[in-house]
């Protein structure tokens, strides 16, 4: 049951071959038996899930079938879930019970999905290895000595280990695509504005975007169709119509020209390059045309990101002051002490580091040198992408510079950690959609192929990914920990 895709489960439920309750219990049992080795879940919502599954089963029995009725799902613990604890991986929100649902949560609930649990993540989505979570490291299902990537490490690891058919994630600088790459699953970050950010705890508002993890491109398309669309509660969400991605991904685009940025291959690890080149040959044989392009300023993406993201985070996280919700320090004598002690006790090291950098970049006398300069670099990067998309339909490259690294290997070197996102941050800065899908292995650890599209070109990305998965089988490989 756990090896089936969302698409297959949807059919089985509709044909009444299985019930939602059976499916829900099956995945809960798997999480209970396998997840102690991975730590991919922060909360299991067993009682709630069983109640929902029974409700959906009775709807199906009466002949009413919601589009994703009865399919289990894990929500990244950054999405507010009404009445369910929402921690964002932080001590600050350890006991926070959200009073409302995020729009993404509401939409998937309305589609009939069953939330089985909330997944572990880097604290406030700040990290690339899932080692900054207050609730402990998440382990990579392919080798538990290795990180699963981050920040959506729990969402990626749980799908990879077949603990859940699909999960949600968020991507500010690569937090969906990089963990998807490191754990061998599919992860899509749509265009900025495609999916509502309402109820998604903010890290860097001009970069954050919600997306999903699944094992196939088709499943990504199914879920994306249901979470996309304008939301009056998010003034930055787009009013563009949402295509039926599930149908559209099966449409084959002919005469597509795909760009390969020379900067992504320059100095790339030999094995990653070899695997990438093999995949280009496979796609060429199947009719794709490739063209070398240059995105010369993309190398500055990490530098600009390290200003924009911390600056916005320092502002967004100022709401955690110990007064209205979140961790509150005891025995304080003044309001200033309340703020400082609550924040110092509630935030972890990486979050504090980013708040400090952001505060510095925005402080008097430094704004022009850092924030304004970064916003200009952002424009330069965005212009280069726009230029590239005049010549090509999609851009292809590796998702990450290497396979997963060992737990602890980069914890004392923030720069090395930040560079894990070197191929992913630029698309966030430009607001572009991008996806990672499995393309091979290095040392028995998965590698991801990144497809980047122009604004709102998710259809082309998903189509290429779906057709790639019709001629390759990397997405069917599973880690030993997942069993039969």
């Amino acid at each position: 049951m756990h090896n089936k895709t969302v698409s297959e489960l949807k059919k089985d439920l509709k044909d009444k071959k299985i019930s939602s309750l059976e499916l829900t219990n099956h995945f809960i049992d798997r999480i209970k038996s396998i997840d102690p080795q991975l730590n991919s879940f922060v909360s299991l919502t067993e009682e709630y899930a069983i109640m929902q599954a029974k409700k959906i089963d009775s709807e199906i029995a009466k002949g009413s079938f919601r589009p994703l009725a009865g399919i289990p799902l894990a929500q990244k613990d950054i999405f507010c879930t009404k009445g369910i604890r929402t921690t964002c991986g932080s001590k600050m929100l350890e006991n926070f019970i959200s009073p409302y649902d995020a729009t993404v949560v509401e939409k998937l609930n309305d589609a009939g999905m069953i939330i089985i649990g909330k997944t572990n993540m880097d604290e406030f989505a700040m990290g690339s290895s899932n080692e900054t979570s207050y609730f402990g490291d998440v382990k990579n299902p392919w080798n538990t000595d290795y990180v699963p990537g981050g920040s959506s490490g729990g969402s990626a690891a749980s799908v990879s280990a077949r603990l859940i058919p699909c999960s949600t994630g968020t991507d500010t600088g690569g937090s969906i695509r990089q963990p998807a790459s490191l754990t061998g699953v599919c992860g899509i970050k749509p265009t900025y504005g495609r999916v509502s950010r309402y109820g998604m705890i903010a890290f860097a508002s001009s970069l954050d975007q919600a997306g999903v993890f699944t094992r196939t491109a088709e499943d990504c398309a199914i879920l994306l169709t249901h979470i996309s669309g304008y939301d009056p509660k998010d003034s930055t969400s787009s009013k563009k119509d949402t295509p039926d991605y599930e149908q559209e991904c099966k449409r084959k685009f002919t005469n597509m020209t795909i760009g390969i940025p020379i900067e992504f291959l320059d100095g790339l690890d030999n094995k990653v390059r070899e695997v990438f080149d093999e995949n280009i040959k496979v796609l060429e044989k199947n009719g794709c045309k490739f063209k070398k392009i240059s995105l010369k300023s993309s190398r500055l993406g990490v530098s600009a990101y390290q200003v924009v993201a911390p600056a916005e985070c320092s502002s967004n996280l100022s709401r955690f002051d110990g007064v209205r919700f979140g961790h509150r320090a005891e025995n304080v004598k003044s309001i200033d002490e309340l703020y400082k002690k609550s924040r110092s006790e509630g935030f972890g090291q990486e979050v504090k580091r980013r708040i400090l950098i952001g505060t510095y970049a925005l402080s008097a006398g430094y704004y022009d040198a850092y924030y304004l300069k970064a916003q200009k670099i952002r424009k330069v990067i965005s212009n280069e992408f726009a230029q590239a998309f005049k010549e090509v339909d999609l851009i292809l490259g590796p998702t990450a510079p290497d396979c997963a690294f060992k737990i602890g290997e980069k914890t004392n070197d923030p720069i090395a950690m930040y560079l894990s996102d070197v191929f992913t941050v630029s698309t966030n800065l430009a607001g572009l959609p991008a996806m990672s899908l499995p393309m091979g292995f290095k040392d028995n650890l998965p590698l991801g192929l990144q497809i980047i599209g122009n604004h709102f070109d998710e259809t082309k990305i998903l189509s290429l990914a779906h057709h790639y998965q019709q001629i390759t089988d990397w997405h069917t490989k599973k880690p030993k920990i997942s069993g039969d």
Partner: protein
Amino acid sequence: MNKETIIKISDLAKIDIKDSQIDDVLISLEKILNLVDEMNSVDTDSVTPMSHPLNLKQELRKDMVTASNERELFQKNNKYTDNGYYKVPKIID
């Protein structure tokens, strides 16, 4: 950046940093700023800064009541409330 800068920005950010940690924080922030300084390799004098990926204009919603006041529900996340207010240490003598 120096120790005084760390003390100043930690006060602005309302984050306590112990004296024993200041040096480590300074070193890690300086490393990040070195990475950030690579931005200066590009001349951007004539570039318009980009504040939003889609250049959207801020939309204002109609001035209509859309959600009810859920103060009691929101205050369930805080045990320091009194009669609908949040309690904090005394600010004015």
